[in-house]
Each structure stands twice: as C-alpha cells, then as structure tokens.
C-alpha cells in the first residue's frame, strides 16, 4: 500500500501517519497527483523522479511550500486510532484519486497567486472533498472539530457559581432606613452562609444585589446615605462643620490669618485647603505625612474652589499689596467609609458659611492694622458647589454614594460638581471604565437633584444657629 504523503513528499493537508511503508520503494514513482508535463514538473516538490532532476532551466516554480500562504481550509479531522482510521484512509485515497481525475476541472476553480499548480489546486480541492466524505463515513461527534462557540450573554462571562444560588432577595426597609446586611435571609445558617459567600466572592455577592436593583445596605442605586451636618462645634476655629454621610465622617475647621499678599497677585488673598486622612479613619492609612489619596483630595478641593469661584480671592484682600486674609481649610476625615470627596466638599461649604471674620482696618497714620474682634462679618460666598460621586460597576451600572466596599469593587468613579444654578463646575473622572455620553448626562441630572437636597439641609442648619 502506498501512501501518497510519504512517496512524493507533497505537503498534503492530512498527513496520514498510520500507513507509512516500512521501506521506501526501490524506484521512486512519480507522484500520482503530479501530472508530468502539465503544470511543470517543478511544481511538485518531488526530488525523486530522475527525469525531473535533469531538466535544465526549470525555474524553481513556487513550491508547494507557497501553498501555505494561501488561505488554508480548516484542518480536517485528525484520524482517530482504530478501525475508523483505516476507513478514513481508504476514503481519502479514493477521494484523492477522484480529485486527481477531476483536477482538470479543479484547475479552473480557485484563482491562486502562485502559478497554477495543479497539485496545489488539487490538494486544495481534495481536502474539501475528503472532508465531506470523511464526514459521511466517520462518526461526526468524534472527528469533527468545530471552532469554539462565541460567548453567549452580554458583558464579561460570569464565573460559574461556586455556591448554590441564593433565593431572590428583597431586603426589607426597616424603620430608620437601615436594612441590616444578611438579615433578609432568615435563620442562622442563612446569615452565616451569606457572610461566607461575601468573603469568598465579594463581587459575585454584590452582583446579586445589583440584579435586584438594590445594594446590601438596602439603598436604591440612586439613593444617598443619611446626611448629617453639625455646624460651629469647634470654638477655637473661626468656622467649623462636621458632616456625616452614613458612616463617613469628615470635619472641616477654618482658621483665618493675616498675611502679605503674593507679589504677582497683590489684590488676592489665599485659600489653602488641606485634606488629612489620619490613621484613625481607616486601617490602611499610616501616620505621617499625607499619602497619595490625601494629596489628591487636597488638590481636588483646591480645584473645586477655583473652578466654582466659591470664594473670590479678591474679596479676601484687605489692603492692596499689604494685607490679605489667608483661609486655612483643614479637612480631617474621622471615619472613612467611602465617598470622601462629597463629604469634604460639603463640610467645606458648611464651614465657610459659618466663618465670621473680624473687621480689619489699616490705620492710615501709623500704617498698622487694627483688628476689631467684636465686629464680625460673614464671608461672601458667591457660589455653592456640591459634589456627587458615582461608582461604575462592570462598565455599565452607575451607583451613587459608594461605600468603601463598593469603591473597592468598582471599576471606575466619577465625581460631578454642580452649583446652585444647575451649572456644571467640574467633572472628575480619574481613569476607570469608559462612560457613554448618555450615562454622563444621567449623572449630571442626579447631581443637580442632589444639590437641591444639600442646599435645603445647609440652609436649615444655618438658620437654626443664627441668633435671632
């Protein structure tokens, strides 16, 4: 039995491994597929037939190695061991013979770049035939190779669930707006299982809540945590405010001092924000100089003040080139449970509204400044910016006011600052997953609503502490 592949060394797409002859035949026979004189002997990569070797001037036509450049058909099924293989080989050889017979017809088929080699065409045509025959002959399930099915479903493939699926959950709204986590699953076992699931697969745990359009602490996706404001508690500071957004607690104290204005901006005062994340607010913050997050937050607050024109620096100037106010705004986070920027901006706004500056006049005769501590005026605050932060989940879902756990699981964050006329002051999106324009517009709308809520709260508090 002769195997075509071994004899003529033609690169057949299906190297048949099983029927290699023990010894090469004494006389190399020309390849059955080769048609001597038809397409040129050089088209076949055979080194065997002596007649070909001596042919002078035969330009090395593109060998069948060039056939690799042609788009190859999908590799036909490998021959499995056992009886079906022999059947396959037989069918293949039959097909090959048929192919060589009809190679004349096959020649006109298929335009290929390399000079019309019959073998190439034949070999190209043959596999298709072989495939169909093989399909008919062999059991389809085993020999057939299919490309992998495209992933079904939208978004990233969800990992296979490790735990038995939890019952669909709807956390009850307990009085006080606090649905304890895990309480919706009745029974001790359920709570323990939920806690274990949360530890092992926090993202999956979270996704199950998001599917029901709520979050583990019972809030809707667009709902803020309970906001509390306390103004004027630190009497050593000129203005102070304590803001609690759920568990996140931020205190802002403002101290006003006098300094000479800078040389290049002689009519401007200074506002110096300073955000501190001491080690007591969360375990991951170390004591010492401010870390990356604190520095970024400080710079962000400075940008918000500048962009929103909350306090115009010219208002802080007392005497051009000689004396100006410096407002040191120290924002200290006491408890970090996510959404630091919102709370900081809110605390800053509330503290600034609480500041009372003494009247400073410059005595023209002596040139010294006189401070009248009895008479105090509030600051002129032109705009009231309010920040709203969102976390992006899985590139699609937006949730408002993330807690620390949600911030860790999120793929991106957006912070939007609006002022009271519904105008946009700043959009801060430090990297993270991309957002469509429509989603950003939704965020802006939500931020405008939030501004109204916050403004109402601040006005109420300020009114309650002003002496009648």
């Amino acid at each position: 039995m002769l195997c075509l592949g071994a004899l003529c060394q033609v690169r057949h797409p299906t190297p048949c491994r099983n029927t290699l002859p023990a010894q090469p035949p004494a006389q190399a026979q020309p390849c059955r597929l080769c048609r001597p004189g038809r397409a040129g002997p050089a088209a076949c990569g055979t080194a065997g037939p002596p007649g070909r070797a001596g042919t002078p001037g035969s330009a090395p036509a593109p060998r069948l190695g060039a056939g690799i450049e042609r788009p190859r058909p999908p590799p036909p099924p490998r021959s499995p061991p056992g009886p079906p293989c022999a059947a396959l080989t037989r069918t293949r050889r039959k097909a090959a013979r048929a192919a060589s017979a009809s190679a004349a017809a096959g020649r006109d088929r298929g335009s290929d770049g390399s000079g019309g080699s019959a073998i190439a065409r034949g070999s190209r045509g043959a596999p298709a035939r072989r495939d169909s025959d093989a399909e008919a002959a062999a059991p389809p399930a085993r020999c057939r190779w299919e490309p992998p099915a495209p992933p079904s479903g939208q978004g990233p493939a969800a990992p296979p669930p490790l735990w038995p699926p939890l019952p669909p959950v709807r956390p009850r709204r307990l009085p006080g707006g606090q649905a304890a986590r895990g309480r919706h699953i009745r029974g001790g076992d359920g709570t323990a299982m939920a806690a274990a699931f949360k530890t092992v697969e926090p993202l999956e745990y979270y996704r199950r809540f998001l599917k029901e359009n709520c979050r583990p602490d019972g809030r809707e996706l667009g709902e803020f945590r309970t906001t509390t404001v306390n103004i004027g508690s630190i009497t050593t500071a000129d203005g102070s405010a304590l803001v609690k957004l759920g568990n996140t607690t931020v205190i802002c104290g403002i101290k006003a001092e006098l300094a000479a204005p800078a040389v290049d901006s002689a009519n401007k005062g200074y506002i110096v924000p300073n955000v501190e994340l001491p080690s007591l607010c969360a375990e991951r913050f170390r004591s010492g100089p401010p870390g990356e997050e604190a520095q970024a937050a400080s710079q962000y607050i400075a940008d918000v003040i500048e962009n929103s024109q909350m306090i115009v620096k010219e208002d802080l100037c007392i005497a051009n080139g000689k004396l100006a106010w410096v407002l040191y705004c120290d924002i200290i986070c006491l408890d970090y449970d996510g959404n630091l920027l919102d709370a900081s901006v809110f605390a800053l706004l509330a503290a600034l509204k609480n500041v009372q500056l003494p009247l400073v006049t410059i005595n023209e005769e002596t040139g010294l400044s006189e401070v009248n501590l009895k008479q105090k005026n509030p600051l002129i605050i032109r705009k009231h910016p309010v920040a709203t932060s969102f976390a992006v989940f899985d590139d699609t879902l937006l949730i408002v006011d993330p807690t620390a756990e949600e911030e860790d699981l999120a793929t991106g964050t957006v912070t939007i600052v609006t002022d009271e006329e519904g105008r946009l002051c700043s959009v801060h999106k430090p990297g993270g997953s991309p957002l469509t324009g429509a989603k950003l517009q939704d965020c802006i709308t939500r931020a405008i609503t939030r501004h109204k809520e916050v403004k109402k709260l601040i006005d109420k508090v300020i009114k309650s502490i002003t002496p009648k």
Partner: protein
Amino acid sequence: MPLDHRRLRGPEESQPPTLWAAAAAEDEEDEEGAGAAARDPCALRPLFARAGLLSQAQGSAYVELGSGTKVLCAAWGPREAAEPGPGRLICEFRRAPFAGRGARGRPGAAAEREAEREAAAALREALEPAVRLGRYPRARLAVSALLLQDGGSALAAAVSAAALALADAGVEMYDLAVGCALCRPPAPAASWMLQPAEPEERRAAARLTLALLPALNQVSAVLGGGRGGPPEDWAQALRLGLDGCHRQYPVLRQSLLRAAQRRRSTPPS
C-alpha cells in the same frame, strides 16, 4: 522654613488676627482671670464620654470636657509584629491644626511633630501598665488619638479616651486608665486647681497630669512640672488629682457598658 511638598502651599508667613487685637484682648482676659479665681478649685467640669462610634476602627472613644476639650481616639487589637518578645503598645497623638486658640498649627512643622511625639510617649507611659501586654506576645496594639479642640487638660482627656478605646476594642486590660490634670496659677499662695481651662493653663506656673488605675488604686503616670512650691503642696496636689480621677471613673465605666449594650442590640453587619 523647609518646603512641604506634600501639602498645598499658602503664604510663607501668616499671623493670627488676635496679635493685633492683643491690647484690647488682654484687658478682657484679666477680667476673666479675676472672675475665675472664684471658681471652686476642686470642681470637676462636666465630662462626656462615648465609646464605639467609629465604624472602621476596632475600638473607639470620644471624650469631651466641659471646657471644650474634644478628643477622639481609635484603637486596634493585636496585629502581628515582626519582633519577638512581649506585646507592644504603639501610641500616636495628633493635634488638629485648628485645635489651638491662637495661630494655626502647621501640620508638617518640626516643632509640631516634636510636641506630638512627646505627647505620644506620655500616652504610652500612662497606658502600658493598664494593658495586659503579656497576653499578646509578638503582637502590636495600636492607639491613635486626635485632639479636635484644646480647651485645657488635653493630655488627661486623651489618656481617658485611649483607655476607653482599648477596652472597646476588646483588648485585655487590668483596669481603665483615668487621666486628670491640675495646674497652679502664678499667684504666690494659690492652690492647685483641677481640670483647668485653656487660659488658666496658659498662665499657670505649674502643671500636672495624673493617670490612675482606680480599681487597683495605682498611679500609672505623673507628668508635669513647674514652680509648685514646697513638697507638701505637691503631695496635696497629687491627692487632689487622685480624687478627681476616682470621681470620673464611674462616667467612663458607664459609657463602656452602654457601648457594649448598643453593640449587642444591633446585629453584626
């Protein structure tokens, strides 16, 4: 002053407006001082203590004195330490920049850091005898105190708050350490006063801070100094301070009990 690259920079120098208003202010303060002399030297100011209020720390406490001192303290239970040997207590004391009445304390300045380090060392001295460090070998217990407003007796309030926070974190202790401060005004025959307010402390000739373990009746730290007078005066001051600590103890215990009840009634999240 060396540039602090990590914070936003303001002007090179700035002065508080009270410097210029000094002349008018001093008259007022003298009046205040005369009025305060009539104050009962043994009177304790109202004390507010609450434990278990921070969500991110294992134990926390907030102590507020009637004169306006506000201290917030957080504590973390045993964490693994690299060095072998008995457990260590690591204390940290920070002043908020707006805590002082005068100029704003510059956070990165060397003087500030030095003062904070001294206060942290004093805190550790006061708390170490109270904590059963032998039960936590090769462990690190961390305590971090933040002074939000200084109205006098800041270190004493910090000691009480830190002990409360450690107890709230579940660290094994022999007893709560209660802090009490005293001061003696510069008048020649003045007597020692308990829990001075900030102006009194500023003008005082001698200051003293005591830390006591009331149930064991053992003093864990005595800090302070100044021109106090004859030694009997100092002994009398100590007795006054111990009495003050004993009187504050029930309030702190009550706050711990309430925190434990609150923790038990809300379900674990």
